[in-house]
């Protein structure tokens, strides 16, 4: 499997999937905002509810609901 196939958009993750954030790009303000909340490159996350508006859980149990705008792109690697 090549890299392009391995990395998918965060919005394509399904409920219950665990993934590692590979890259975050787009509007600097949005990047800084989600990064301050802990969603950064290298972070391992799980999706507790998938969909356009999804729920992301971090390893420490913190949960966020997230609906990404077109100005933000997050690539993840499914673990």
């Amino acid at each position, binding site marked *: 499997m090549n890299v392009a196939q391995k990395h998918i958009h965060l919005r394509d993750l399904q409920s219950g999937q665990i993934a590692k954030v590979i890259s975050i790009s787009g509007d600097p303000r949005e990047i800084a*905002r989600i990064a301050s909340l802990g969603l950064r*490159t290298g972070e391992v996350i799980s999706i507790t509810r998938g969909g356009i508006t999804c729920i992301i859980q971090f390893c*420490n149990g913190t949960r966020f609901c997230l609906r990404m705008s077109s100005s933000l792109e997050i690539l993840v690697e499914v673990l």
Partner: protein
Amino acid sequence: MANQVEVSSQSTVVVLGNPNAGKSTLFNGLTGVKQHVGNYPGVTVEKRNGLISINDEQYELVDLPGTYSLAPNSPEEMLAVKILLGKPPAEKKPDVILCVIDASNIQRNLFLVSQVLELHQPTVVAVNMIDVAKRDGIEIDCGKLQQLLGVPVVPVQAKRREGFEELKQAIAKSRNRSPEFVHDPFEASMKDRIEHLEATCPNDCELKRFAVTRMLFDTDGFMSDQLKAEVGPDTLKRVATEKLEMENSEGAVFESESNARYAWITRHRDDFVKQTGPVRSSSITSRLDGWLTHPIWGLCVALVVVVLLFQLVFWIADPASTMIDWFNGTLAAVVNSVVPAGTLNSLLVDGLINGVGSVLIFLPQILLLFFILALLEDTGYLARAAFLMDRFLSKIGLSGVTLFPLLSSFACAIPGIMATRVIKNDRERLVTILIAPLMSCSARLPVYVLLIATFVPEKSYLGGLLGLRGLTMLAMYSIGIVVAIVVAWVLRRTFIKSPPTSFVLELPSYKVPSLRNIWQRMFDGGWSFIRDAGTIIVAVTILVWAAAYFPRINADNPPAELANDFATVARLEADGESSDELELAKNNIAAFHLRQSYLGRSGKLIEPVVKPLGWDWRIGSAAIASFPAREVVVSTMGVIFGLGSEVDEESDTLRGQLSSATWEGTDRPLFTLPVALSLMVFFALCAQCVSTLAVIKRETNSWFWPIFSFVYMTVFAYIGSLVTYQVLSRFFT
């Protein structure tokens, strides 16, 4: 009532922290009733300050809006940063910064602390929710954390008010004491870059480290704007050059700050965090979320919550009205026994007491709504409901959090608009405020009931399952919703457009709510309504009273058509009799008064404008009279049609009078089905509520938006009413 806090030259302590870190609980616990809620001058952000006494000295405590970072994203966060820097609206720099952090989520909370420490100002860190962390198998060594941060670290349990005395002493001791060392979370190359930039700052710049760091990671120019005066043009230019260099060489510059700070936290985490037991992190939350965020079961629960909220606010309207009626009646009786009948009596009874009643009538609903919203927010449920509704509301440019304000508006737009404070995005909040009055509130119901029962035939379909009257009522409620959807969609794509931003909302762990917090929120909501909207409502009510009261007829020389009525009143009152004849004569006089009052004359003046809607001047006058409050339309119609103001929507006499009313000078019926529907559509869409407009003014801190609401809703109401009448009059007479 909130105690007015005398703010003098005492030391100021600002309370800063992440949302959901327990900041407000700590603030409420420390200040008790000695707090005051107001607005920062020129902005809509609420200012909460209070007094605490430490060693017989008074300190002013200021609760700043919750923020995750000092790279602000919303007006509230920008304000928090300005106050930290001592910029207007703050009068001076705070004497102590009190950072409240959540022990159960210490890494993310330390991110903000790490930024604050760069200010090198007196700082105290309060580690809250130690008990929750312990339950999750996490123990914080506050002594070790203090060594790492170089500022006092105090464990507290804000909900139980534990650790407050130690915290107060730490604040007092820190007042004139800067952190023990310069905070430095960055690795070598970034550190060099920052120190190099620091060296270019003028010598008198007090915030060198903080200024250059914040400007280096500034994403929208806000921090550069705030700090350019301190650092000077040379440093500003050098920062821009360094940023460009970083972007070219290091790629994602805006992630580098968080990477550095989180790396620093992770490096030291084991020094101050001990895992004392098995990780039980959010097991209750996980289980509850399994149900409450489920696409089907979650929606069912949300629906039940919403129906309960709506019903409770709706149900309380009735007893509240009875209570206010009693209040008005008692006060009016007192005034009548002291002040003789005449202008002063009418001003006091019909103007002032009525105006105060108009303010108080909404208070129970507002208090209840704030109680429920605070309860839902404090337990953590509100964020889940927002998640569930987001997928639907995002299609019209809103987010899930707008659900509760909009639903509350079905009961009353005033608490609904005040509930928009839960919406963090400023523009989204504004659109919600502007569409909230389109939801059919309880005050529209009497108009619908009166006109539907009088003019809509009682037909049923599907074996009695559906009735025409019920469907008409549903149509009136739906028309507001449809127009609200269209308005929101248009506004979010035109005038109140905002760049596409992601919707991010923390879903805090479920917890038992703090009654003190809930009580405080409920109280603050009620008080700000009385203080800010109440005054406008009373003033407008008195103005409308004057328009309906003046000019007066000279009772000694009445017009010919009223001579008999005046004579009847004089005769029967002298005999001390109370009869139908006396009532009829009094009602005729009142109807004549209203017809020739400024209000009645205005109705005649606008008759050419309302005629295409199927209305005559009498309906026009009733509509004008109901602009301050739509619920008065039924009693105004009662007066205009000679039945007095005591009639209600259930009155058979009024229904009969409306059915038999004709255009003046003809036998053509005035009220037909198209006229009744045209009037109902007008009421469904028009902004006939001065209290709502006053609250929009209060919440937006601008006169433009209430005027905008009034104009756009009146235009929509007129067009809707015109189309309804013109189309339906082709089919019905």
